[in-house]
């Protein structure tokens, strides 16, 4: 009797603790974001929390900044191109890793996934030195796209690979047996089955590219610069609340993209 009472008490304590941990986790994760968002609507000319008065002053300010509109467009274009290219590359590599049996498989796996383990600053520094050696450091736009592909491909590979590895191979055989060529089978069966992985890999790649500072800081220049890099530069010179407003805009963009993708190409059919 008493031992079962003790067990019950322990169970209640455990549940309470896990709820408390969850609340603490949410506060810890979302707290800074909430503070940034709220303080971006301040009327003061410096960052305070809570704001003395609410206004859209800094949003008007942001849209009048010439570097903002220029770099947000650049960021978008780069993120879209880099995501598209790494999706294609990632799908092909994931397919080879999931179904292929070749000797260099372990090496390919290592090379493709290394960027996940390496600090991006190290990668950026290396890439920058390589570009300088080849006297290519002036091509900011192309370099940014190339660099972003390097860091986003591993994410696409990972998520597409796990989607493909979990797929029953007899589905492909069924398709072949029904008269579909290997190419038709890839298009009609392999790709649709990997779709959840492709979508989540794509979202990861896009946000990664859109938000990156560590790598882009080495590759930007007078010809092209991304929004996060420009924002970093701005923070260095002034303490006004524009970065808070920009952060809020970027957050909104990321959330909208996520919502739109999951609505339109969504994962509904697999639910």
């Amino acid at each position: 009797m008493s031992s079962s009472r003790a067990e019950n008490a322990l169970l209640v304590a455990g549940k309470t603790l896990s709820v408390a941990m969850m609340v603490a986790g949410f506060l810890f994760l979302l707290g800074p974001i909430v503070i940034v968002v709220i303080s971006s609507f301040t009327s003061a000319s410096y960052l305070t929390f809570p704001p003395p008065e609410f206004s859209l002053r800094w949003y008007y300010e942001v849209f009048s900044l010439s570097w903002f509109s220029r770099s947000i467009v650049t960021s978008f274009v780069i993120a879209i191109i880099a995501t598209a290219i790494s999706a294609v590359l990632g799908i092909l590599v994931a397919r080879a890793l999931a179904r292929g049996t070749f000797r260099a498989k372990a090496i390919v796996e290592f090379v493709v996934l290394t960027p996940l383990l390496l600090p991006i600053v190290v990668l950026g520094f290396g890439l920058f030195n390589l570009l300088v050696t080849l006297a290519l450091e002036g091509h900011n736009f192309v370099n940014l796209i190339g660099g972003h592909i390097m860091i986003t491909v591993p994410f696409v590979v990972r998520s597409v690979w796990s989607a493909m590895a979990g797929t029953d191979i007899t589905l492909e055989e069924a398709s072949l047996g029904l008269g579909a060529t290997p190419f038709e089978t890839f298009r009609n069966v392999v790709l649709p089955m990997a779709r959840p992985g492709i979508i989540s890999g794509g979202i990861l790649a896009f946000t990664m590219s859109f938000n990156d500072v560590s790598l882009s800081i080495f590759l930007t220049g007078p010809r092209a610069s991304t929004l996060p890099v420009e924002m970093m530069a701005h923070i260095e010179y002034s303490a006004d609340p524009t970065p808070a407003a920009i952060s809020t805009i970027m957050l909104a963009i990321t959330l909208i993209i996520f919502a739109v993708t999951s609505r339109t190409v969504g994962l509904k059919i697999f639910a």
Partner: protein
Amino acid sequence: MSSVEVRNLVKKYGDFTAVRDASFRAETGSLISILGPSGCGKTTTLRAIAGFETATSGDILLDDKPVNDIPPWRRNIGIVFQSYALFPFMTVADNVGYGLKMRKMDRDQIARKTDDALNRVGLPDSHLKYPRQLSGGQRQRVALARALVIEPAVMLLDEPLSALDAKLRDEMRFELKRIQRQSGVTTLLVTHDQEEAFTLSDQIVVMNNAVVKQVGSPREIWDNPNCAFVADFIGIENILPAERTTNGVRIAGHDFAALSDAAPGSDIMAAFRSSDLELAGDEAGQFAGQVVGEAYTGNYNVYQVQTGLSEAPIILKTGKSQRLSGTINLKLAPDRIKILERD
């Protein structure tokens, strides 16, 4: 529709031989089963016919023409996988129409043939459902419709009933036979279930350890298994080492009359069913035994009887009203003893 023939098929994976010199033939419109325990090479044989495995040596012939070099997507073979392998992101109608679409048939024709195929398998109203919304039996019917609608030269079924529960399995067995007879498609099915093989097939190929042990009609195999493995696999309970004598067999020193062509003196196995043993009553039987175990199974009683014929007890079956105990006298009619090769 075509005949299927497997001629001296060998399939090796490195040092491992999955199929060793297998040969058999299924005539146009017939239903043939490959029966054997798991790992006997039956699925490898089926996959070789489908074209998913390349033969190490030997030939696969459809309508007497070798197809070894034809890839799976040009063989025109309908396959029903054990897991059914329905495309989860396609509706039932799209699943069934897939093979026709790959054949570049026009939409109306695909719709018509899909309707027809779904009617044939008894699923007229499921076009717009997804596979996950169907029961196991319905999925099986869709898989059958998808394989049949392309009017295949041959239909291959891999353990078609194993994923279903017992009641549904009996129902689908009749369905499968009806659908096969109606469409007249040459069908090859792979199974480890002897009842399935016996009730469905025109011909049975029994395989074990990569080797074809026996090919014959269900009746031939039931009445005359040719080796101890086949006898055991089709459920003959008593298989004992024996020696051939001039007019019968000698089992552990006891002589029995039996019908056989084997040469006298050769080492053989003698087999008899538990239901073929007769009680000798008070008159002298051929041998005596002691009842050491009993089980009631409803329609009949099963006994373990210790006799002088073997170390392990032999199995005896009686009607449900006949109960045995103590010492009993037994006899065995000459035509009930099956003479088998030793494996």
